[in-house]
Every structure is written in C-alpha cells, then in structure tokens.
C-alpha cells in the first residue's frame, strides 16, 4: 500500500506503464474496506446474490395465473400471447405489450372496482427501465429483478447497521435474512405480475426500521413515521397483510416519545397528582405513535373497504363452500349453523366457477346477502373442534412452500412445463423435510420465537434498549406470522393455500436469523442508568 502511494501506483514494463500495483493494492484494500463497512458490503453482496440467483443460468420468476391482469392493466399493458399449444401457466411470461384497456376491462375481476396495491410502483419503475434499456415490449417483468435486488440490498445492509452486538453476529443474522429473501420459496415472486413482492420487501424493511425505532429508550417521531410508512406500504400491497397491525400497533406504542416524556414525567408533587400526571404523560408521550396508529388502522380499514366486492365474494365463497363445507361430514347441519339454506349442499367443496357452483343455484343471492366473514368466524367459535383440521391444511400448505401449478422458467429455457427452480432451496428443503412433523416444528418455532422475544424484550435492567428491540422484533414477527396464518386460513381457507401463505412462510423463515440476533443481543450489557426513565421513575 505504502509502495503504491510512493510510486504513484504505476509500474514500467517493456515500455508500457501498467497500473498493476494500483489495482493489486486496491484489491488488497477491499477486505479491509468491507470490514470497515459491514453494512454496505453485506447489503451489496446480498443484492448481487439476488441478481445472480434470479438471472444466472436464465431468468426465473413466477408464471401468471391470470391474477396479474388486475394490476398490470393499470400500466396500460397486456401480456404477449403465448404460442399455441404451450401449456397454460407452465412458464414465466415476462413480456408485456402496450394496450389500451377501456373501462371495467381493467378492474378487479371486471367488477368496476380497482385493484389497488403498492406493487404498482415497482411495476411502474420496471416499465420505465424497460423503455430506458430498449427492451422488447412495453414492460419486461425481468426489470423487477434489479429493483427488488436493490431493495434486498438496502434491507440487509440496514439490518446489519441496526442490529446490536458484535458485528460478526449482526452480519450473520442479516445474512440469514438475506438467505430467506433469496430462497426458492420466495424469490420467484420478485419477477412476477403479482402484488406479493411489495409486501415481502416491506416486511424485510420493517425489521431494520423497527430496530432503529427501538434503539432508544425514548423514540423519535421520524422513526415512528418511518415504521408507519413501511407498514402502510406492506399492508397496501395486499389486503391479507392487515394482520401486520397486530404487531406494528403495540410496537409503535411501546416506548415514549423523547421530547414529551421527560417534560411530563419528571415532576414531583402529591401522589394522586403524580399518578394523573404520569397517565397524561404516558398518553402525551405517545401522541405521535397514537397518531401514526390511527392513520394506519383507519387507512387499513379504508383499504379493506375499497376492495372489490367480487374478490371478497370469491374469497367468502372459498371459505364457506371449499373450506367449511368441503371438509364437513355434516354439510346440512353446517349450512344451518351458517344461516344458509340447505339446498346449497350440492355445492359443498366446489369452487365458484365449478359446474356444481352454488352461483348457479337460485339461493345464491341469499348467500351473498346473508353470509359474511364474521359469520364464518362465529361458526368456528361455535365449532372449535374444526380448527385443528384448518390448521393442518395450513401447515401442510406451508410445508409445500409454493404452488405447483405455476412454472418458474422461461419457455425458451428448455425446462419442463411447470418446472420449479431450486437454486436456493435451503428453507424450501427444510420445510419439506419437516412436513411429517409439521405440527411440532412450525408451531414450536413460532412459540419459541414469541416467548424468547418477549423474554428478551422484558430484560429492562439487564440489557440496553437496542438489544431489547431485537426481542420486540422477534416476538412481533412471530405474532404477525401466526396472525397472518390464521387470517389466511379463516378467510381464504385451503384454496391456493401455498401461494396465500407465502407471508406466513416468509415470517417463519425470518425467525431463525432473528433468534441468532437475539442471542447475540443477550450478550449486551446495559450502560449505567442514564437518568429517570418514564415508566419506572418514582
């Protein structure tokens, strides 16, 4: 290095000045630079790994099962027709041509109501990149690959930066998260016309954002806003992500806001006044978080309300006719319990477009008028012995990890129709192997993560707030994953369960690396007490 500086980095050889020393020195400096900048280097590495796993050896992604239309049509594009004789959904079809969709031809299932998702924005960016790079068609879904690779790079690097404990442990845990993000059960979604990738990236980014929020005893308003925005992005990707609120709302309200906390709570005086002041202080210290929660909850409610009635109808139909009645030994009794006429029994187990669909029966309008998700929930409350069956179908779906009817390769790749890629099959293999023990492995992982996270989060006197934040994130992801699992199983049932449970699967995959981070965080020692702490101050 010193010689390089002294000679200007150039070497005379056969009359040609070659910058060999300079290059060699720069290469030697790389490991040192990487050690000095673990967040940037780890993030960049996972961005490159994502790109490599998506494109080296031919692009991979997810075939469109016609769900892509409701989102892609908003960009004024239509898929290039597949060649005659090519099996439907067997291959990834990344090229879209410009097309003018009129009226309800571009809406959620033709209902005249839009299908809204934050995935629209990455797709818009991909369309722009397609044009900039002069690729064939108006939109090439492969352009989503670099976009999500960049997103993963940011998420992983940011996680390294926010994780407490030794750097090697932070890098190890973040690498575990990166590995989950590029696993074959997850990564094909990035190059697809579906709304899942936006939610997956949102989940990834929520981890460092929450760690950052909880890195202080007294939170900052801008960190609250950041977590709220990322949560809104994630929920806005897909309605089923509303279950995320079960973790995000308590996390936002967990710690007081720095600016108000001391002003309201560092007061002396009589006990009653103190108590009142403390309550007011607790509320005042959470005003930004309360405002963020109100916006999040209200926004989520509005978002859910504006979902297409037709999509809700399909989901409710599947829930009632495929899940409740399709797995029933007393169809007539269950119909009565649901408040539905028994002549709908012939449709038990059917899909909404099946030849024996209830939609073809005269009493179908009555089903639409009377039935609701609340009724189905009430049914399960009254028939709790049906829940293990529901859970088993969900766990089996998770163990399967991904839908078998959607191919991952391009038709030009030479791969067999419906072939699924297995470039990074770590989690996929582990879930598949755990299939016979799914009742033990998956719920145990959830329970261990939740209780372990809570335990770490509760060690107020032993570990610093930054380390306890890891416990909160671990417990939060575990809770959100369980909530996601039941949201899917009690609303959509086992229809296309492998695809619908991708977020529960991803959440479960994240628990392992977060447990590593939690163990490393345990090693952290609390700094000397910094002064009065709002919740424990006398």
């Amino acid at each position, binding site marked *: 290095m010193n010689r390089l500086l002294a000679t200007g980095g150039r070497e005379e050889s056969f009359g040609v000045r070659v910058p060999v020393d300079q290059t060699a020195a720069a290469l030697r400096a790389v490991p040192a630079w990487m050690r000095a900048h673990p967040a940037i280097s780890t993030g960049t590495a996972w961005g490159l790994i994502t790109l490599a796993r998506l494109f080296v050896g031919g692009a991979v992604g997810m075939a469109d099962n016609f769900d892509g*239309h409701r989102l892609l049509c908003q960009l004024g594009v239509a898929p290039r027709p597949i060649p005659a004789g090519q099996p439907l959904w067997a291959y990834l079809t990344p090229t879209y041509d410009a097309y003018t969709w*009129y*009226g*309800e*031809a571009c809406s959620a299932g*033709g209902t005249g109501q839009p299908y809204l998702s934050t995935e629209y*924005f990455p797709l818009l960016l991909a369309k722009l990149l397609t044009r900039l790079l002069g690729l064939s068609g108006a939109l090439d879904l492969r352009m989503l690959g670099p976009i999500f690779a960049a997103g993963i790079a940011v998420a992983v690097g940011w996680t390294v930066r926010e994780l407490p404990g030794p750097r090697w442990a932070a890098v190890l845990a973040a690498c575990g998260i990166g590995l989950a993000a590029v696993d074959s059960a997850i990564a094909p979604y990035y190059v697809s016309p579906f709304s899942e990738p936006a939610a997956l990236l949102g989940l990834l980014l929520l981890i460092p954002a929450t760690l950052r929020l909880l890195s202080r005893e007294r939170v900052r308003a801008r960190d609250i806003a950041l977590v709220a925005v990322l949560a809104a992005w994630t929920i806005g990707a897909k309605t089923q992500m509303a279950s995320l609120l079960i973790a995000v709302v308590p996390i936002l309200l967990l710690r007081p806001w720095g600016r108000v906390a001391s002003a309201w709570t560092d007061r002396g005086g009589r006990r009653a006044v103190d108590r009142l002041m403390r309550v007011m202080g607790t509320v005042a210290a959470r005003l930004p978080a309360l405002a963020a929660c109100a916006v999040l909850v209200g926004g989520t409610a509005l978002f859910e309300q504006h979902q297409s009635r037709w999509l809700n109808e399909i989901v409710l139909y599947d829930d009632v006719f495929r899940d409740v009645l399709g797995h029933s030994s007393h169809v007539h009794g269950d119909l009565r319990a649901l408040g539905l006429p028994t002549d709908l029994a012939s449709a038990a187990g059917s899909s909404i477009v099946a030849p024996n669909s209830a*939609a073809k029966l005269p009493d179908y*309008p009555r089903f639409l008028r009377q039935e609701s998700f609340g009724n189905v929930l009430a049914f399960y409350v009254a028939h709790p012995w049906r829940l293990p069956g529901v859970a088993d179908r969900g766990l089996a779906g998770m163990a399967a990890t991904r839908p078998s009817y959607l191919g991952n390769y391009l038709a030009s790749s030479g791969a067999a129709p419906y072939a699924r890629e297995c470039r990074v099959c770590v989690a996929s293999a582990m879930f598949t192997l755990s299939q016979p023990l799914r009742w033990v492995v998956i719920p145990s992982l959830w329970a261990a993560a939740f209780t372990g996270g809570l335990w770490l989060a509760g060690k107020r006197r032993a570990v610093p707030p930054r380390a306890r934040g890891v416990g909160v994130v671990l417990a939060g992801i575990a809770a959100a994953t369980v909530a996601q699992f039941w949201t899917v199983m009690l609303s959509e049932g086992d229809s296309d369960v492998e695809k619908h449970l991708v977020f529960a699967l991803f959440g479960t995959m994240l628990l392992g690396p977060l447990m590593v981070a939690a163990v490393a965080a345990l090693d952290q020692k609390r700094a000397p007490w910094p002064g009065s702490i709002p919740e424990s101050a006398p």
Partner: protein
Amino acid sequence: MTKGWGVALRRSAIPVLGLGALCMSVLSVPDLEHVGMGVGSYTTTWKVGSCHRLDRLEETDPVYASDTSPAVPCTSPHQSETYADVPITGAVARQAERPSPLWLETALRGACDWGAMAGFLGDEPPDITRDIVVLQIVPSVPEWRAGVRRVRCDALIGPRTTESVATISRSLRGIVRTPAAARFRVCRLGFTQLACDGLHTAELVYPYVKFTDAELARGHAYKLAKVRRACVGLVAAYLGAPLAGRADLALQPELPGDYPNLDSRVGHCWVGSKNGLPTTGSVRRAGSGGAA
C-alpha cells in the same frame, strides 16, 4: 448554518423523494376518478350492427361483463358484433348496485335469443354453424347506478382458446349466406370436427335425425335406413339440388352411438366427396352458403 442546512436536507431527502415519486405516479394516471381502472367514458355502445374490438381474453370473459370500448368499423379487425339489445327485468333489475358477475350470468341466462342471432347471421335450417356464440354485455357500474337496465347481445366469433380469440374484418350480418361462412360451418376430417375452411372429408347438415327409445333399441339396418331416408330431403335442401344429381358427393350417415359420439341418441347427415379425398370450403347451395 451550513451544517444545519446539510442535516435538514439529508433528513428531508427521503420523504421529499418519496412524496415526489408518489405525486409523479398519481399524475401519470390520466383520470384520477378512475385510478386503477381502464380509460374511456364508461358508456356502452348499444347500437345494433356496431362492431367491437375485444381481442384480449379478459374482454370476452363472462366475469368482465361490461364493454365500454369505442365501437370500431366492421371492416376493421374485431371480435364481436351487436345483433340485439334487450331489457333486464325481474329481481336482478331491482338491485341498486350491479350484482356479482356470476349472479348476473345466472339471472340473465338466455336473455339474448339464439334464434335472433341466427336471423342476424342469416342462419336458417338446414344450416348449422360453429365458432359463433352469444356474448352478453351488461351496463357498466356507473350506467347501472344511473338506472340503465339492458343487455347488449353480441355475436362473438371463435374459436376462443385459452391463449387467444379469433378476429374478423367484415360484418357478421347475413354472413351465413356468403362464401365467407365456410369458416363457421361444421365439417370433419376423419373423426375430428373442424371448420369447413380447413381440409375436411365431410360436411354436416342440420337438423339431426331424432330417434325414440323404441327405435334406439332396434337393429343397425333399421337405424341406417331411417337416417338415409331423413337425410335425402335435408341434404337436397342444403345443396340446393338432390344428392343424386351430384356425382362428386356422397352421403355419410352417422347413426346414434357411432364413434366418436358413443352416447349420441340422434343420427347425423354428413355429406362428403365420393372419392373420400379431403377438400376445403362448403358444399352449401350458392347464395346460401357458398360453394366450394
């Protein structure tokens, strides 16, 4: 001061960029009122004889029940043509909001009369057509809310596969009486049914020859004789002349239960070239369907 500005700029960069991206995206949508939806006025063209370009699968899927794309000249590529416009009545018409597509499909089944479409196409016995089906178009949601209760009856051409829909560049009005009808007539090559504009060995004549239960129980000779007898008049009407007068053609009777229609309870009159060699086009009487 400079440091303060730097910090402020750094802190506000992400929110400002985010807001900017959001505003750009929103502004890039042409009609804010219909964010996430297709373009246009959401007004259906109800005119009989209007032609419609619906060349994407979604646009002719029963679930996508409305069509507010502007009509196109019938001499340009299109997929459907309106042959009638009928009112929606009954319980479904009383719904303030447009009901779900499947409910509508069930409630409006048969609203568009097949016979009316046949009349529009110029299809009359002994004609039989394939690859033309009825497509029912209902009012858009804004139209339904405004009280519009009518169904547009379109003749939709096929074949419509899982990959594509077919296209035509002329009006369908009276098409069965023109040589262009060959693509909609029913022929077969061996045992495979196909349109008559492709290579084929026989062409189907309508109507079918009906059998009672008692007749179905009788022997092969009886059934063959019955089909032959019934087909004489039908084929003569189809060709515009007795079959005996066409040295190049022969009757190919299909009996109930013959391969490949093993469950069939009717007989079919097929007419094809006597030498058994494949041909293209239709043998339908000139002026009613076009000669080969």
